[in-house]
């Protein structure tokens, strides 16, 4: 009755292998904002950074500690921020992300950490009236 340990989905594998947008922002014009969320007991620590130009995300990067699903989610979110208007509806939905990366239920809490980090960054951007 032992389950076969579900391997990671192809998308997670690909993102984990490349980790796009991991590390620091490339230097460039515009203002830089950051957002960070940490829940070590839940197994995730995520930090986003973005360079904002004319109310748009010109560049976005992340740093993270966590399981492959957490790193993949952060990478996916960072890449999707590129070009986004920060006053627009931030294209983030933990539930949708969970399905896309088929994240096992016990790990859903970690996606919320990713979400918190992102919203922290966007909130800061609004506060600084970079819109």
């Amino acid at each position, binding site marked *: *009755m*032992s389950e*076969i*340990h579900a*391997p990671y989905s192809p998308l997670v594998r690909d993102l984990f292998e490349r980790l796009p947008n991991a590390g620091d922002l490339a230097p460039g014009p515009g203002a830089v904002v950051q957002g960070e969320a940490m829940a070590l007991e839940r197994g995730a620590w995520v930090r986003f950074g973005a360079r904002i130009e004319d109310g748009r995300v010109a560049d976005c990067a992340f740093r993270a500690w966590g399981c492959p699903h957490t790193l993949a989610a952060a990478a996916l979110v960072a890449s999707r921020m590129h070009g986004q208007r920060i006053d627009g509806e931030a294209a983030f939905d933990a539930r949708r992300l969970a399905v896309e990366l088929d994240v096992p239920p016990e790990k859903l809490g970690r996606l919320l950490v990713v979400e918190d980090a992102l919203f922290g960054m966007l909130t800061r951007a609004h506060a600084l009236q970079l819109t």
Partner: protein
Amino acid sequence: MADGAPIYLDYAATAPLDPRVADLMSECLRDPALQGNPASVHAPGRAAAARVELARGQVARLIGAPPESIVFTSGATESVNLAILGAARAAGGGKRHVVTARTEHRAALDACRQLEREGFALSWLAPGSDGSADPGQIAAALRPDTALVSLMHANNETGAINDIAAIGRLCCARGVTFHVDAAQSAGKLPIDVEQMGVALLSYCAHKFGGPKGVGALYLRHRPRPALQPLQFGGGHERGLRAGSLATHQIVGFGLACELAGACLATDSARIRALRERLWAGLQAAAPVLRNGVAEPGLPGILNVRFPGVEGESLLFALDGRLATSSGSACSSATAEPSYVLRALGLSDLAAQASLRLSLGRETTAEEIDRAAWLLVACVRRLRAVLPAGAIERIA
């Protein structure tokens, strides 16, 4: 078997390993990609686990069960003990009564005796003259505090078959957990656990061409009987049976189930015919009597007695030429007369004069004819030196 080797008519004790199973197991033992522990999450572990799950499906299919309902064990003895001790010990609500029969296999008998030592009340049913349990008798034995009914599907000495479906309906209606020891019937008789209303079913691989040392316990999902494990640790098999899984054993069990299931009908028809051919051949050693009834009975078992013949001398006279057993070979280390035959009403002496001849997939007509000839010759030789009146006296 090998040239000059004895004719093997002891399939009920254990069947020779099917060569196809031996080949698959040998590959499995050598395959570098299958050496991992199926419980490990890394690639070699997952590869082994995948093969285990494949086999789980094959083992489940043989009895019409879903794969998730199969717990792998080290054999039918463990399965039977896990079912009987596990279900009784886990039964709450003051249910301290168990129903079983006197003709069960030692594994079930001794597990039930242990329950008696633990304070459970046991109802030991006597079989009918045909060796099978009477559903009416079982219905009568059920009590409000009955935790479990445990019966075998087919008897390992006489081949007598119990009406599992009828008893299953009865237990379902009364909400009693029903365990079936199918060690002798699995792979030989059609089994559909869902139709039969069975909650727990025990079987093993080595009785029908699979390896020794691996078995399974079927555990119904809804309603699911509570079970206390026999051995703890690690949470393998959903926490019901701890211990690293033996990939090669389980893979061999799986293939054996698939092979047996595929030709179950044709095999049993052929084997039943050989059994009757043997019975006919033995008439030359008259007087010879049949213990139990031909039908309904396991295709492969013929239990006979030769009045005036002493069992040990007969076996020794046959030794090296015909391998068979007096009484239950699983416990033939003990020389006591078979308690199963005694329960059928045979005297100690009659039981002593009995032989269990059991046939299997590899048995040939030529072997049967040679075996009959041998038996007749040995019986005549022993009778030739009997004191006058012994044949009448010892039957």
